């Protein structure tokens, strides 16, 4: 039988509700504008890494085209809500990200149908090609995107006192969407089938798992949320430039953040982002003029990958389980009546 404590640790309350509530309280505690600005950026990477994780974590497909969809979301918002059109006291553009997400998700289905026929390295190459293709289009479709001159977006009419807060909560809602979807999938046969697909796609197909629809679905949901984050980001900056909206560095940052925190875990990508982004900003601030910050950035990854190769969350989880398992055995040994070590589920 599963112990009460383990069941509690596996509950929605502990896994989803409490962490989100804690993140929801942050703007009440940290009110300085620069800190919140950092928090918005951190949450944005948390959303990017978590939505990327919906595909990579469940299916094992390492996509390098998510930044293209981030840019498409940013441009879509810029085109829909141009300068002077921030409706609903400035909250209108946030709502526009919903139809943008749905449209991008729908458009991702035929794209996924084609690119998900490749695997492993080929898939990575195909997706990074897609990224550069979209970036080239953004530079050259000047009638639509303004090319390298950029595209102006509606200016948010929020007062300086709480300018960052709406963006913080918009990103938090997107993060909540990612973790709720991740958790719902994990608890359903969908999660079981996707995990089987990730572990051995060939065998899963032979056991009746509908691998192609599952992969395409995961891809569509994953890029849809990425595009929504792009929309919020464009509104936050009020300007979309092709080299920042569709940026290979953002893509690499997303993937590395997810790996760092723990690909395939619920909170790993978000935790990775909340460590990496402040560290990156700190180093950029301290060493910015010399570009040396990129070296320190690389150093963080090297240290973590060497010390915690599977990522922070899985490595820490294992360490805790071992510790708790050891402690429980130590208690259980002198007490032969105890048939089940406390807190050990398997």
């Amino acid at each position, binding site marked *: 039988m599963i112990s009460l404590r383990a069941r509690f640790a596996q509950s929605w309350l502990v896994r989803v509700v409490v962490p989100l509530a804690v993140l929801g309280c942050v703007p009440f505690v940290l009110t300085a504008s620069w800190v919140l600005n950092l928090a918005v950026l951190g949450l944005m990477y948390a959303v990017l890494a978590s939505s990327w994780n919906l595909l990579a974590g469940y299916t094992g497909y390492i996509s390098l085209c998510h930044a293209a969809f981030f840019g498409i979301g940013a441009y879509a918002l810029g085109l829909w809500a141009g300068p002077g059109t921030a409706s609903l006291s400035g909250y209108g553009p946030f709502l526009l990200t919903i139809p943008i997400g749905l449209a991008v998700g729908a458009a991702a289905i035929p794209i996924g149908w084609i690119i998900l026929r490749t695997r492993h390295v080929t898939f990575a190459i195909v997706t990074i090609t897609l990224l550069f293709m979209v970036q080239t289009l953004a530079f050259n479709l000047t009638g639509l995107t303004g090319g390298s001159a950029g595209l102006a977006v509606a200016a948010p009419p929020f007062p300086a006192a709480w300018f960052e807060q709406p963006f913080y909560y918009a990103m938090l809602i997107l993060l909540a969407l990612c973790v709720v979807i991740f958790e719902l999938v994990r608890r*359903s*046969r969908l999660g079981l089938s996707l*995990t*089987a697909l990730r572990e*051995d796609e060939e065998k899963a197909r032979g*056991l*009746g798992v509908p691998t192609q629809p599952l992969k395409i679905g995961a891809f569509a949901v994953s890029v849809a949320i990425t595009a929504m984050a792009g929309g919020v980001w464009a509104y936050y900056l009020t300007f979309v430039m092709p080299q920042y909206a569709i940026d290979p560095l953002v893509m690499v940052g997303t993937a590395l953040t997810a790996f760092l925190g723990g690909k395939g875990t619920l909170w790993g990508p978000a935790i990775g982002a909340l460590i990496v982004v402040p560290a990156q900003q700190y180093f950029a601030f301290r060493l910015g003029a010399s570009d040396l910050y990129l070296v320190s950035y690389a150093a963080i990854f090297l240290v973590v990958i060497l010390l915690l190769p599977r990522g922070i969350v899985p490595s820490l989880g294992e360490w805790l389980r071992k510790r708790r398992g050891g402690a429980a055995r130590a208690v259980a040994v002198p007490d032969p009546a105890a048939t089940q070590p406390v807190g050990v589920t*398997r």
Partner: protein
Amino acid sequence: MSETGNLLEARGLHRSFGGVQAVSACSIAVAPHTITGLIGPNGSGKTTAFNIITGYLAAHSGEVHFDGIHHARPDPRRMYRAGLTRTFQQARVFPELTVLENLVVAAKRDWRALFGRRVSAADRRQAMEMLAEFSLSEHAAKKAAQLSYGQRKLLDFAAALMGDPKLVMLDEPTAGVNPVMIATMERHIRDRHERGMTFLIVEHDMNFVMRVCDPVIVLDRGTPVVSGTPAQVQADPRVLEAYLGD
């Protein structure tokens, strides 16, 4: 079943890799309720034929008929739904799933079940019955990665049975496992056979083949050369030639 009464009929399969003809003019028939053996020296195209029939590899020409239906382009998932499953030479399991989940994922369910519980009560019951049959019940909650190689072979076999198939294709069921496990495997095959299941087995262990399979088909350089009872096959000079060369 086809007009000839066979459960599976592969006709004129042809597949080459570069200049090498892996199978050519390869026609295999499996009658219902038999344990058909497929033998041949290394490189004779047994696994290639297996992969074509189960849809893992496209044939350059040839036809596959299963249970009376012509499958123009066999696909693993469609073949599974039609009632054909297989195991792999290297006992393949889903290492990060539990032993129980390895079976649940193989149960035949329609797409709506995907949105239901990870392991429903009915799934659990069916999987536990199967685990009990294979004496793996005590390992139900373990990750499949923790099983021994022999146990993984059994789990792979059990998973292939979860969808209630008409034909199970076993790729070297006894390779790399100890004699006790071979006896266990044989018992399970016979047991399922008595309950009406049909098997097509690729195997190198000749004692096992001669004991369990009837009929036996011998492949040589991608083409079937002899087919008959174990006694007929053993007496046929072409078989010796296939194994020892000219």
